[in-house]
Each structure stands twice: as structure tokens, then as C-alpha cells.
């Protein structure tokens, strides 16, 4: 409630303030940061041990069974790829659309993208029966004279995810370069000087550099935009290209993309609220931004809800007995709780955002974002697990054996992601310096010529 009024009479944010506020985040870490890092490392260690145990003992240590070849790992894969998506959306798509609320949150969202893809990319390998042969999915010349099968959606995944990782990482790093240069110029310790000196690649902010940089940045955004749509479409084709009742649906690509943005924005909120609090970024990330993100959530929630309904409608309208059974089974079958949990988290709970005051209510948003994360995990779980457990042949219907190994690896993924995030926020500017400066009115001797966006600082 405080935020609502605070900016009314404050002075406009200056370039210097932007620099100082953001670079302050890079100051030597306190105990809290170390605690966070070690928690993440601990989780990561759990996950790594579980994976090694799984490889040592056999893949059966995860809970899959014969009707259910995919489960938690692919759920995690889709979940993390989904998380990744909002980052690119915010950084690229909203860049192209010149959305006003994008700048303060995009860096974090983009870091989230890169690290989430790094997390997601682990799962297809973890879920392999013989992960030591994962290389065979790559089309590299080999003595066997064999190539992979380009007709397989899994190979498309290889292409899509690796491209997505490469491009989003490039986009992310390119965006970081000027900011690192800024950090370099204010670095005090020798370590930081060297670190930023090297990673800024000798960036000098010259007008030629800026010219090409801005041109390239636009092109990157233009590349990343179709990519963000294609990657989750390709991921959805893992399912849609199959014949499994409940998977084989043409609505999957848009449905997955919308779901990805939905979950990704929720994850951004989950991450940014503590960060804003910890680093006192209230002047940069204002209720205006939360309001905008809430609206995005509200919209994508609507799209996702619509998709759910469409799925049911399609199943009914197609008169396909297998499909119909599947969609009867999800809400009323053995695993109804997963379905209704998903419905509550993704469709019903977010509707509260129609209330304006809740859209800027930070604690509420935090809780909501956690719920959405859970809901979206359940959504993938419903799609993958529930469909597989009831396929065509009733004699082959079966169940799942959740195991602690899967839980461990899932936790480990959060540890892995968290580790990178934690390291990142302390070593690199997690709020874009240059991009925020861009929307500030530049210092002008003759006022009135400068025209910046009023998104930062001077809230509404």
C-alpha cells in the first residue's frame, strides 16, 4: 500500500542514481546471500546424488512404469522450458512492442530464461535410459555412418532447445556487455576489475558501438520473438505429434506458449519480489510494473483456461472414445486431485486479479505466483501422466511409483537454477542499467527537448 503513494512527490530518477542503485547490488555479499547460495548448493548436491544413484542402480529408481514412460522428468523439462519463456517474452517481444513496464524487470527475466533453459536441458538427459549415449541425438559425423531421425519430435527438441539456449544466452550476454562496462568503470576491488574488464570485452560506449549495438539488439529481438513461439510449440509437439489420447491435440502449441508465458511471468514475480526487497529497488520496480505483470497473468490465465475448456470440448465433439474417456478420467478419475489442483491454481485463483488493489498487493502477488507455479507444474503433470496412465488398451493401464529419487532430482533442479541466479545477482547487474537510463529523460541543458518514458521513478 505504501508503494502506491510513495513516488508522488519524489525527484525524478537520474542516470547516476540508476547506476549507483544497481551497482550497489554487486557489493560484497552478506550472510544472507551465502546462506542462499549454500542452500542452493545443498539442493543441487541432493539432486546430483540422486541422479548418480539412478544411473548406478538403474533407471527403475525413478517412478516410471510400462504404460508411463515419461513422468516427473519430462514434467520438469516442460515446466522449466515454460519458465524460460517469459524471459524472452519480456526481453524480446515486449521490446519490439515497446512495452513500458519491461525495462526494470527484463534483465532478471532474461537471466531466468538462460538458467531455466540450462535446467530444462538437463532433464531430457536425466530421463534417458542410457544418458551416456545422449550424444547420439546430435547430427555429428561418426564412424557408424549413422544420423539421427529428423522426423522425431525429440530431435526437434534438440534443435529447438539448443537454439533457444544459444540465442537467449547470446541475447542475454549482448545485453549485459554495456552494463558490465559500467560495472567495470566503478569496480573497486582487483578481482571485480579483472572480472568486469574481461567480460565487458573492452566495451567503450562509443557512438559507433552504440549504433551497431542498437541495430543488432533489435535484430536479436526479432529473432528471439519467433523463437519463443517456436520452442514451446516444438516442446508441445513432443505430445501433440503422438497418438496418445490427451496428447494428440492441435491446440497444444498456442496452449503451451500461453501456459509458458503464464508460468514464466509468475516465476518472474516470485523472483523479483524478494530481490526488490533485498536490494531496495522500490524506486526502479514500482507498482506500475506489478500492475502490468498482473494484467499479463490475468490475460494468460484466461488463455490457459480457454485452452483447457477447448480440450474438453474437442474431446467431446470428436466423438473419439479414447479421447472422451481421457477427459472424463482427468477430473473424475483416480487422480482427480491433480486436475482440480491445477484448475484452482491456474484458472480460479488468478481471477482475483480483477480486483485492482490486489494487482499491486505485493504479498498477495507473491503467494499467487507460487500457486501458479505449482498449478503449471500440475498442468504438465496432468498432460503427461494422466494421458499415459489411460491409453488405448485397458489391459495395459497402469500406475506410477513416485520415488524419492525423482523428488531429489526435482529439488536439485531448483538448486541448480537457484545457484546460477544467486551467483548472477551478485556478480552481474540484474537490473538493466542502460535500458533504464534509456527511458529516463536525458539530462538536457534546454529542458523540453528530452522525452523519456515515465515508467521509472515517477510511477503514474
Amino acid at each position, binding site marked *: 500500500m505504501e508503494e502506491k503513494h510513495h513516488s508522488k512527490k519524489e525527484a525524478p530518477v537520474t542516470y547516476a542514481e540508476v547506476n549507483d542503485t544497481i551497482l550497489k547490488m554487486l557489493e560484497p555479499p552478506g550472510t544472507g546471500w551465502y546462506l542462499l547460495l549454500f542452500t542452493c548448493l545443498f539442493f543441487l548436491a541432493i539432486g546430483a546424488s540422486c541422479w548418480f544413484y539412478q544411473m*548406478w542402480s*538403474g533407471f527403475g529408481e525413478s517412478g516410471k512404469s510400462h504404460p508411463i514412460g515419461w513422468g516427473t522428468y519430462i514434467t520438469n523439462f516442460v515446466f522449466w522450458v515454460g519458465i524460460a519463456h517469459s524471459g524472452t517474452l519480456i526481453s524480446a517481444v515486449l521490446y519490439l512492442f515497446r512495452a513500458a513496464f519491461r525495462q526494470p524487470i527484463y534483465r532478471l527475466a532474461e537471466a531466468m530464461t538462460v538458467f531455466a533453459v540450462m535446467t530444462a536441458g538437463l532433464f531430457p538427459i536425466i530421463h534417458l535410459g542410457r544418458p551416456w549415449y545422449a550424444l547420439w541425438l546430435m547430427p555429428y559425423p561418426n564412424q557408424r555412418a549413422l544420423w*539421427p531421425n529428423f522426423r522425431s519430435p*525429440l530431435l526437434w527438441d534438440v534443435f529447438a532447445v539448443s537454439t533457444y539456449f544459444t540465442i537467449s544466452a547470446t541475447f542475454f550476454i549482448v545485453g549485459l556487455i554495456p552494463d558490465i562496462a559500467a560495472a567495470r568503470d566503478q569496480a573497486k576491488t582487483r578481482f571485480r576489475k579483472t572480472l568486469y574488464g574481461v567480460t565487458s570485452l573492452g566495451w567503450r560506449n562509443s557512438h559507433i558501438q552504440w549504433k551497431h549495438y542498437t541495430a543488432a539488439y533489435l535484430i536479436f529481438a526479432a529473432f528471439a520473438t519467433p523463437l519463443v513461439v517456436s520452442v514451446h510449440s516444438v516442446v508441445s509437439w513432443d505430445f501433440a505429434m503422438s497418438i496418445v489420447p490427451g496428447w494428440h491435440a492441435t491446440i497444444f502449441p498456442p496452449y503451451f506458449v500461453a501456459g509458458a508465458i503464464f508460468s514464466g511471468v509468475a516465476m518472474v514475480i516470485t523472483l523479483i519480489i524478494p530481490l526488490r526487497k533485498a536490494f531496495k529497488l522500490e524506486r526502479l520496480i514500482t507498482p506500475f510494473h506489478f500492475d502490468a505483470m498482473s494484467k499479463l497473468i490475468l490475460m494468460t490465465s484466461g488463455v490457459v483456461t480457454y485452452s483447457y475448456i477447448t480440450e474438453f470440448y474437442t474431446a467431446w465433439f470428436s466423438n473419439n472414445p479414447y479421447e472422451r474417456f481421457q477427459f472424463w478420467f482427468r477430473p473424475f478419475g483416480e487422480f482427480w486431485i491433480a486436475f482440480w489442483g491445477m484448475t484452482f491454481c491456474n484458472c480460479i485463483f488468478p481471477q482475483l486479479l480483477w480486483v485492482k488493489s490486489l494487482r499491486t498487493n505485493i504479498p498477495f502477488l507473491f503467494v499467487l505466483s507460487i500457486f501458479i507455479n505449482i498449478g503449471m507444474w500440475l498442468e504438465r503433470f496432468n498432460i503427461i501422466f494422466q494421458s499415459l496412465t489411460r491409453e488405448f488398451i485397458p*489391459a495395459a493401464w497402469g500406475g506410477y511409483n513416485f520415488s524419492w529419487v525423482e523428488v531429489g532430482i526435482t529439488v536439485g533442479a531448483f538448486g541448480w537454477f537457484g545457484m546460477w541466479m544467486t551467483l548472477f545477482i551478485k556478480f552481474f547487474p540484474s537490473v538493466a542499467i542502460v535500458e533504464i537510463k534509456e527511458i529516463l529523460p536525458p539530462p538536457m541543458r534546454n529542458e523540453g527537448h528530452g522525452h523519456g518514458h515515465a515508467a521509472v521513478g515517477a510511477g503514474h
Partner: protein
Amino acid sequence: MEGQIVQLNASRKSEEGTGLVQISRRRFLQALGATTAVGATACANPVEQNILPNVKGIPEMVPGVSVWYSSTCTECTTGCGIRVRTREGRAVKVEGNPDSPVNRGSLCALGQASLQSLYDPDRIRTPLKKTRTLPTGPVFEPTTWDEVYSKLNEAITNSTNKKVLLTGELPSGQQDLANAFTSQLGFSQVVWDPMQPVAVAKAAEMVYGTYGVPTFQLDKAQVVVNFGADFLETWGNPVGYARQWADSRRSDKPLRFVHIEPRLSLTGANADLWLKPNLGSEVRVALFLIGQMIERGRAKGVSDDVRSKLSQLTKGISATEVEAQTGIPKEKLLLVAQYLADAKSSLVLSGGASTSTADPLPLLVLTNILNVMLGNVGKTVDIAAMEKPSTSGSKLASLIDDMQSDKVDVLITAGTNPEFSFPDAFGFQYALNRVGIKGDGTGKKAGLVVALASQLDETAQLADYILPLHTSLEDWGYVTLPNGSVSLIQPSMRQIFDTQSLGDVLFTVASNTGKELDPSQTFDAYVKSRYLTLTSGKGGADSETFWRSSLEKGGYFVAPASMPAATASVNPAVFSLSYGISVKPSHHGELMLYPYPSVKSFDGRAANRPWMQELADPITQAVWGAWAEIHPETAKEQGIKQGDAVILRTNDGEVHVPAYVTEHVHKGIVAVPVGQGHSAYGRYAKSTGEGGSVFSLLPKKIASGTDAIVLTGAPVTVVRGLGSGDLVSVQEFSSQEGRELARTTFITGAGAHGHGEGHGEGHGAAYGGGHGEGHHEPKQMYTQREHPVYEWGMNIDLAACTGCSACVVACQAENNIPVVGKKVVAQGREMAWIRIERYYDSVPTEDGGEELKVSFMPMMCQHCQNAPCEPVCPVYATYHNEEGMNAMVYNRCVGTRYCSNNCSYKVRRFNWFQYEWPELLSWQINPDVTKRTVGVMEKCTFCVQRIAEAKDVAKDLGRLVEDGEITPACVQTCPTQAITFGDRKDPNSRVSKLEKSERAYKVLDHHLNTQPAVSYLNDIRYKA
């Protein structure tokens, strides 16, 4: 929801401790080693692999080429001919011998699993001496043959009391020698084999005058009315009868089959009409039918005198009364009577568990009378060729009495396990421990118990000394068949351990006491000379050539001659029996015990074989261990849910088993399969032994008028036990959900035959879209694959498939499919490439009611043209090859399991762990089939190694493979020849023709356009 997840999760424990199923972790360690071993060169592990040649050449042995030996299966007494495939001197597969008239090339699950008896890792390897008995069990130490022989000799020489040879039903060769042995050495022989239908033999004696079990010709009957005889499972000659049954069922005039039994057995599941009488009341049905036959003028087969006596007996028995007594609706009773009356030829059978009551004779006798009345003797009942069991429960009971009263000095057991398979109430163990104790009251033990056994079973454990015997795959022998054929048993491989043939042991024991049993001195010579005697004159002059060719062929087989047109007259003595219901609950609501032998465990002899343990029971689909089939009403009263632990308690004992709640069992009974609950007999048998054996529940009672024990009818209480009973079933859902997977053609009208009813009628389907579209050619998006030479395909006739599961074991044996153990199966990770799906459907009857229709459907990889699994594999580990097969390349597989997800038939199997056979069982590995490693998908290959072998041979001959030359393991062994394999490209092959049959359809093809290479033929059922 929670229930299932929690239950499944709780069952995940490491199984290595039990040593049952070995899950190896070595592979990953090796992989781990690889990453570290790049620099580590100084490691002691040998790099080399050795290749060992034969020292001397063996003429018939070419490395890599199979050698087949003909022999005879001795698992039950039927005497099926077998062919044992050996590679480099090791038996690797047991198949039926096509030359044998008994089984005509097929073999049941148990017979094929005899290989695992040979390779039982817990086999007795040397002579053993019992040193002491601990509370945990007896302790044996290795000893020498000579020591045992001298002890035995001493005991025999000093014996003043009875000397007894206690055996199972020995193969004729051993039995003939045993006869000489007992007569010369003053032994008496007692035979115990619980699977022998001795009451049936007795009833035959009462009616026909000869003791023995007649052979039947099911294919000559138009109507078969069966009182409980499980002739498609374990009763009589199951393989042969199944073939007869199926030949008739798929013919133009299929027999109509009515099964009357309180429990739905596999045989009952194949019936057109299954009637569920109160246990013990079947006799009234038989009596009613006799009355009806007389009334309808179909009693011409008996004399007027007998007929009048019979009408006396049946007087006043009305359908209403019988309905009240038996619980079978009177319409159905009249229907059965009408079937019988209308049929030109018929067959009435009785036997099995439901006739193993305390008073079995009346029913058995009445069915024989029915056969006589209807003129079936000489048409469908052959009383000339009878199997004559020597088993006698009463003799064994009196032996026990003798032993208890210290009248037995020497007891030699061989090939039987009464300690397990004779009711505990008789006190066999206590009695046996008194063998040799002097009757003078001093308690001094002078006598001896020697067990001759291959496996350390419960009876062998009681012995003072154990002499290890060859299994029948290492032994000589012969089996004389009821029709005069002689089937030879010959060793298919050299003995593995320090074992001897039973015959040679008898020879040695006799010669030690100075007796000569036969001039031939050794058992193999004895078999040869006896065989030549038995077949005297039939081999021509050159006996050596005849002997050689007989060994090759498997014996001397008489062509199944036409049956002597015997007529039988009813022995008037039968009228002295009482035909009331003598077996019934003593008070309302009392439950009766109904133990039955199943196709999976028999009397317990199959329990030491992992294949048989992991074979899903065709009816309950349960694996590893016993269960109790409980009617839902009973279960509700006791608060029992599916899978709960229950305690079955009778006056004589109790067993702990999981509950299998099913309405396909009469509510007055609790049905339990016998054969589990071993306390010895190897690791696999013992692993399911905790709950106890059903034989401990049985009363100390011999069925009146017979030599049989009383199996069924003991009053039993069912109590819910603690927690989960560990019921593991591979199929949880029994409804087809209207999906028309297993389809049926119904024949309507009494006896009229017509296929006009269309597919899958009356499956209560909400989505009936699939009717009559079996042959449509959908428009294809892609041009279909050209198959230049061959296009392999398969056809499965559901009208012939009985669900006996022989194919499942054949597949396991042929393709090195691992047995994974109960825990892993519980996680839904069974590995069988072919499974028998069992569906219960409710179908409308002609009179507007509803009847149960059980469908069995063998399901394996369908080798689809438009296979959903293929395009999703990222590494081409599975693809469509030019011979129309869905190929699976194990070594290319990375284990994404996408193919399995996308397989609409769910026939792909993933190696969740590294499965290894323990030593000795590992000898059965088929060297032609790659062993799969952890993390790899596998599935049915149409036995590609056999295809390759046939192509290899054909190529040498410069021609193409001809129809019928390739028989995948399942096709080869199918007792009913329900499966056909061949080249779909050849329009004249059997498989192509069957595929065009009007009954043909392909599973799910009408919805998915998968274009399977496997087609099915509709089941055929009479509309009840």
C-alpha cells in the same frame, strides 16, 4: 488415488538380498570407470577374452548350429513328445515334438519350463547326508554315492519290517524297472501324484468296468457339457484336448460348450455358457439331465432295465427343484438339456477341483451314465485307450499309518513330494520321522529314509540321505501311451552335476543286495531293450537302425486309430450310490474351500521355475504366489478389499494369502490355487512360501469310495489379515470399455451357424463406430512401404485361443526375456513380450438376459506399417524394415521411452534395471538373441532369429522361404495352433488367406490406421 500410489511406492525395495532376481549395478560402475580409466592404464583387469575350442570334434556339433533331441516330457503323465534344442552341448529350449500324436508339436507352459528345472540353481549337486536338524531346517553335508549305497544296502539287508518305495507317477520305463525292483527286493510301492484324477478312474470302473481315465474326442462332439474338468488347463491331456476343442471351434460346425463349475476356471472362461452351481450340488444337475434325456427319448444307449432304474431315480426331479438346490436358473438347465438332446453327438465330462469333494463318485458316475445313454461311448469317449493312474491316496494314508506304528524300515522316495502335496492333516512328516525305529520300543533307529530327487523339496529334506537324480532332460526312459505308442526319453545334454538316473540307482541298489533286475545292467541299455521288446516286430529286422530312427523321431507312434466302436453297459452297482447332495455347508453362510490346480502352478511342481512364477495367471492375471478368490459379498461382509491380506482358516490349519475379489466365483466358496507356499524346493518356490500351503488346510479324509484325497469342500473362514497382501496382478482393468479390442462373432439360433452378427456385438459400447469396417482401405497420407521380397505377418484366431499362456513362456524362453520378480512386476515393469489380455464383457443372451463373455487376447508387437513408435525415435533405434517388420535395434537405443508412450498397443518393454540370471539359469540363454542391457527398449521381434535361420537355409537351397517354414516361438508352441505366421506378400500363404477371412480384423486399426501386420480373427461364441 492415494491408495494406488502409496501402495506401489511402498513396494519398491531392493531385491538383491533375496537373490531371486539379480539386478546388476555393474554396468554403471563400468561406465563410471570409463571416465576415470582414460589415464589409468595400470589396472589389473584382464583385457583378454579367451576362445576355447573343443578338444575333440563332435560329429553332429557345428559351433553355432542347433542340435535337436527328441524326448518325452515328464512334467505330468500325459507323455507329450518334446524336442530339445541344444547349442554347444547345452539345452536352450524345449518344444513340442510334431511327430508325437499326443501333443502334435505343441507344449504347455509347464513342459517348456522343464528347462528351468534342469537349470534350477538350487538343484542337488552331490549326494547329501543329513547331519542335524536345526529349528531353521535340516542341515545336509555332501557325501559320496558309495556311502549312501552301503548304508542303504545295510538297511535293506537288516530290514525286518516293510520296505517301501514311495514314488510319483513314474515314466513307464522307470516304473517297469521299479516293478522288478519291488518284487525282487521285497519292497512295496506307493504312488502319490495329486494331479491324477483317481476318482474319475474309479467312476469309470464302476460304470464301464475298467479302472482308468478314458480318452475323449472333443472334436467329434457337437455339444460338450463339462462338470468342472479343466481339460484346457491341467486335466487329462490339456494340450491335445485344447487342440481338439479348437479344431472344432473354428470349424464350420463348432461344438457348443457348457461348463458347470462354481468358479470361473480358464476352461469355463472358454465356454459358451458358464453355470455357477453350489459346490456339491452338480450331482442334481446331472440327475436332472438324465431325467430330461429319458423324457426326451435320448436314453437309447442303456438297457431298458437300467433306464427304468434311472427313471426311478430321476422321478419327480423338476427344474424348479434343481434350481433351488443348485442355484442355476431353470431356464438354463432346460437349455442345457435341450442342447444335449438335440445334439447328434455329445460329450459329458466331469473332473477337476469341483469333483474332488468328499463324495465325488455320484456325479462322476452320472456323467459316465449320461455318456452311455447318449451313445457317446465309442464316439467321443474312448474306453479302450485309458490312462491308468497308480496313485492312491488311501495307500499313502495307510503307509503313513504303518510308518507311525513303526512298521516301516526303509523308505525310498522318488519323484514325489507328499510332504507338500498330501494334506498335512495326515501327518506325513511325523510318520516319516519314525521310519526305521525298531518296533521293540527301544526307540533305536536302524532304518533309513533315502530320497532320490533332483530338487531339494520338502520330502527330500526329511530324508536321511539324498541321492541326486538326473532331471528328465538328462535321463533315459520311455512312456507308453494309452493307444499303444511308446514315446522315448533321451538325454539332451550331458549331466551337469554328479547325478544318476533313477533307473541306474535302482540297478545299483539291487545289485548291491545281490539281485539282478534285468540282464541289461544299466538303465540306458534297459530302456533300449525294453523299447525294442515293446515295439517288437514293428521295427523290422535291423533293430539298431530302428532304434536310431526312433530316437530321432522321439519314439514309436501309432497313428491315432479310429476308436473301437465300443458300447458300454451300465454296471448296476452304481444304483447303490446315493445321489443326494452330500457336500454342502453345514450352516447358512458357511464358506467352503475350493483349492484348484492352475495352469501356472499345477500342484506345486512348477513353483521352482521363475518363468512359471512370473507367468500371469490367465484368469486373475496375478503373478508370484497364491491368492484367494473371494466373492464380493463375502468380501463386503468381512470388510476385505482387493489385495488385502486375508487368513483362510479351517479345522486343520490356516494360510495367509492376498484377497482377489471377483464375482466370477460362487459366493459360497473361497477358491485358492494350490502349489504355492513351499518351505523348500529352491529359492523361487520359497520366495512365495510365507503364507503357507493350501494342503495344510485340507482334512484328513479320503473321498468316499475312491483313492482320492478331499480337495474341496472343507469349511473355511475368511478373516481380514493385517495390511496389504501383496497381490501383484499385471492387468488391473477387465473391461474393454466398448473399444472392440477382442471381438466376437455370435452364432444365434439353436445350433444354426452363421457369422452374420457382426463384430463386437453387445459390448455395451457407447461408441459403436467400429462395426463391419474390418476390410476398409483407408486413404493413406504417405505411400506405403514397398516390401521387395517378404512381408511378414501374423494371424491370431481368437476362436482358438484358450488363454493357456504357453506362448508367453515360449517367448520368454526363446528371447532371453528376464524374469524381474514380484516387486518389479508390482511397479508395472513386467518384461513379457507377449501377454494374454483377459476381458470380461457382458453380452445379451437370446432370451434377453445377460451372460458373461470372457475374451482372451494375445497381444504382442503388431509390427504396424504405420507404426506410431517409429517416427518418434530420435536415433532410429526402431524403424520399419524391408520385410515389413518393426525392427528394434537395442544397441542404438538411448532409452527415451517415447516409442513406448506412443505405442497404442503398449507392447514395448523397457529395461529398468540390469537383469541377470543367476548361474545355471544363465545356461538357458539363447545365444542367437542379444541380451539387452539397462536403459534399452525391447519388444516382440517376430523371432527374427528364426526368420533369419529359415532364410539362411532357404538361401543355401537357392530358393525363397516357403509358407510354414518359419515358426516364431509362440506359433510353434500354441496348443491350439491359434497363431499363424507367414508372408503377407504371398497371396497363397495361410496368413494372407486368414487375413482376408470375414472374421479378420486388426486391433485399433479402424481408429488409428496403424496398419498392423498382425491380424486377429473374431472369437466365435454361441449366443446362450
